[in-house]
């Protein structure tokens, strides 16, 4: 029998199926749309050294069919019913999502399950699709911000897989085989690694029945090396790199700090607040001072990215090369202030209000909700998605100051600078 894991107060229900698959569901009576989002713990972090890039390449190959489903049939079935299908891969996950009018879920979900469970990875399609992935890599190398972020990630994560590009490299991809990819697929696309989220205009019972029926015939498990946890050496001092690029019209200053992973999610939520304090809106400290008052930057933003094993806090400025040193120095001064001076009640209230409203604004559609639930359940538990607003509301200035002291050092960080040739 299935076992209910969550308290009834939650808007979503979580059910563990007999085969180990997690099913998350939320019924939205007002919407005629239903979204299915399947999350698999099979991201780039699961790759051994010779298979770098494979998790993402496999995401492409999933769409190339199975023994009973020729390439293109799935795409046609979804789109011919007015639906949308797509997928994405990161370090901690790969996920596949389909949006259709609710009555069509019955017609479309069996196809999605068939692709995910029984991917054939045909040899000829493998060779052809590799060219597509190589073009994807080339297009990234025409994007200065991508190049800069990649270099920054490599610099701050010297050993952890979070430092590598999810896309892999041409050299690695050319040495991989369809057989190796089938092995990766059969090892990881197994029920205990998967979360199927269904949100929208379909009630729980038929959705559960449908998922139970379609996510049954998993491939025979293969062995794939389990990776050992990597200890990332502590960052001490400033890790600096400078990259010169042709065709660059303005410089970039990109700074990064690592922060706790999802096991200390409260720290992560606090760092979300600090990111808003620094660069969200014209009242935020860095935009107000650097863009509005001192005219030092074209734009500045910060971002806190919650990841399973280690989160990443970044600050990026777009500016003239001659302002690079001054802006970096001023950012350090702001971080210093965060460690020494408590945030005012007004500022704290503004940051909390922003994040709580942003949460409301980004849970308006079934697509957004399904993504939120699937993501949290893949890196931790879905419950973390629900407690977010209450957690944000409970922060005090002292706790944020101590987070800044622990994680946003003005003396230890990685910095990547892009300059025109």
């Amino acid at each position, binding site marked *: 029998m299935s076992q209910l894991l969550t308290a009834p107060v939650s808007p979503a229900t979580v059910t563990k199926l007999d085969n180990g698959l997690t099913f998350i569901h939320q019924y939205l009576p007002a919407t005629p*749309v239903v979204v299915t989002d399947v999350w698999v713990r099979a991201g780039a972090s699961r790759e051994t050294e010779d298979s770098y890039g494979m998790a993402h390449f496999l995401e492409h190959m999933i769409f190339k069919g199975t023994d009973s489903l020729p390439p293109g049939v799935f795409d046609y079935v979804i*789109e011919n019913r007015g639906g949308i299908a*797509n997928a994405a891969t990161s370090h901690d996950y790969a996920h596949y999502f389909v949006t259709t009018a609710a009555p069509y879920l019955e017609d479309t979900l069996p196809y999605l399950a068939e692709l995910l469970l029984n991917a054939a990875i045909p040899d000829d399609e493998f060779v052809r699709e590799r060219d597509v992935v190589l*073009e*994807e890599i080339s*297009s990234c190398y025409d994007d200065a911000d991508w190049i800069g972020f990649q270099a920054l990630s490599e610099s701050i994560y010297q050993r952890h897989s979070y430092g590598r590009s999810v896309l892999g490299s041409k050299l690695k991809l050319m040495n991989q085989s369809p057989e190796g990819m089938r092995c990766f697929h059969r090892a990881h696309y197994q029920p205990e690694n998967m979360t199927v989220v269904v949100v929208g205009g379909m009630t729980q019972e038929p959705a559960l029945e449908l998922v139970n029926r379609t996510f049954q015939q998993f491939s025979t498990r293969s062995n794939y090396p389990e990776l050992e946890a990597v200890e990332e050496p502590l960052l001490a001092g400033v890790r600096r790199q400078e990259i010169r690029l042709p065709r660059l019209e303005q410089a970039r200053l990109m700074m990064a700090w690592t922060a706790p992973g999802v096991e200390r999610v409260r720290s992560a939520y606090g760092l979300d607040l600090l990111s808003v304090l620094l660069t969200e809106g*014209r*009242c935020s400290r860095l935009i107000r001072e650097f863009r509005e008052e001192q005219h030092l930057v074209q734009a500045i933003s910060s971002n806190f990215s919650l990841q399973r094993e280690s989160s990443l806090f970044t600050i990026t400025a777009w500016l003239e090369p001659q302002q690079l040193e001054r802006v970096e120095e001023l950012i350090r001064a702001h971080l210093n202030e965060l460690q020494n001076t408590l945030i005012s009640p007004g500022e704290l209230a503004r940051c909390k209000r922003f994040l709580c409203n942003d949460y409301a604004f980004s849970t*308006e*559609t079934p697509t957004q909700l399904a993504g939120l639930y699937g993501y949290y359940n893949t890196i931790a538990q879905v419950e973390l998605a629900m407690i977010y607003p209450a957690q944000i509301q409970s922060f005090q200035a002292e706790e944020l100051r101590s987070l800044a002291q622990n994680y946003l050092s003005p003396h230890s960080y990685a910095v990547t600078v892009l300059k025109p040739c």
Partner: protein
Amino acid sequence: MTTDNEKQVTAELQNQHIHRTVLDNGIVVLVAENPAADIIAARIFVGAGSYWESQEQAGLAHLLSAVLTKGTQKLSSLEIAERVESVGASLGTDAATDYFLLSLKTVTSDFEEILELAGQILRSPSFPEVEVELERRLALQAIRSQQEQPFTIAFDKLRQAMYQNHPYAMSGLGIEATVATFSRADLQQYHQTYFRPDNVVISIAGRVTPAAAVALVEQVLGDWEAPAVPLPTLKLPALAHQPGRTMTPQQTQQSIVMLGYLAPSVRGAEYTALKLVSTYLGNGLSSRLFVELREKRGLAYEVSAFYPTRQDVAPFVVYMGTAPENTAIALAGLQTEVELLCTSQISEDALQAAKNKLLGQYALGKQTNAQIAQIFGWYEIMGLGITFDTQFQKAVADLAAPELQQAACQYFLEPYVSLVGPESAVNSLVTPVSI
């Protein structure tokens, strides 16, 4: 074939009721009540935008959008930001090609306060000198930064070739030569000319009744009077069809190959047919270009088509990014696929699939309050009226394959071509190749 099930699905997806009211001063208010979430989104449209710029004014609407929220007769830039950010609302501006937009989103209880602020911004912006200077400098930098993206370079060159002296020739940012000359007085002049109640549509969606929403707009903007002078009429140059090729050598990893055709405005007889052609060619994983050029030949990661809905002659564009050594093959491949639409009729199956895709995705594009407010407000400001929503869907459903072929033959003449990529790859293609 349409089954009962399909009819039911379509009916459910279309179930939106829009209340339309015209205030005494000419403001059109559209309201879609949607109690699902504790949110209200509003889109305030002004009949302005880059389409209304003379050649000397290229980029003026964009600069106006950057400075508009940076001061009113009562409030400074920072005070405006504080009012918005202290309640976690969003208030943004955008100078689109065919209209000017002020967008807001709040939780329900803050809507009145933020709408009042938006009213002040619309009616009495102060355009502080120091803010004009700051945003003008940043706009000039943004124009330069756009050149970092190969796609943007390719599309810029294509547009210039296709539209010559027409306002659609330029990106909304304008060009350095024009933006460098703009002053506070230019912004005031543009604002006075176009920001008037009889040139405004306010579209609201969310947890609010039509009566309450209309009363609120009346309270905030009801005493705004339209000037006696009529709105200026546009004098636009006639477009000459002069297809050709532009080559832009750049040190890039990929070549961008782009083909453009002059295609009908939203009022053109073949508009719907070409919308469907654009879907058939370039929308989604089962589209013709994706299947033929990416899935079967591995030529590209990104390959697509777009045909934006425009007041005036619109660009119909197909493009892809490809390895430099494949530039010529990509160009021939794209051109072959487009021309095939004229030389042969698409099958009934393909026609039906394209319709299902277009109509299904159109419905999926009306999920959030902001999306609903956007689409109906846009149709209203374009002069199409809110019924265009259903007319368009019916017109798509009624299309027959010969109409697509006829539209393709009429508009897919010799293409304008824009190539960006390594010198050796693009320069060998200066003259058209026969395919």
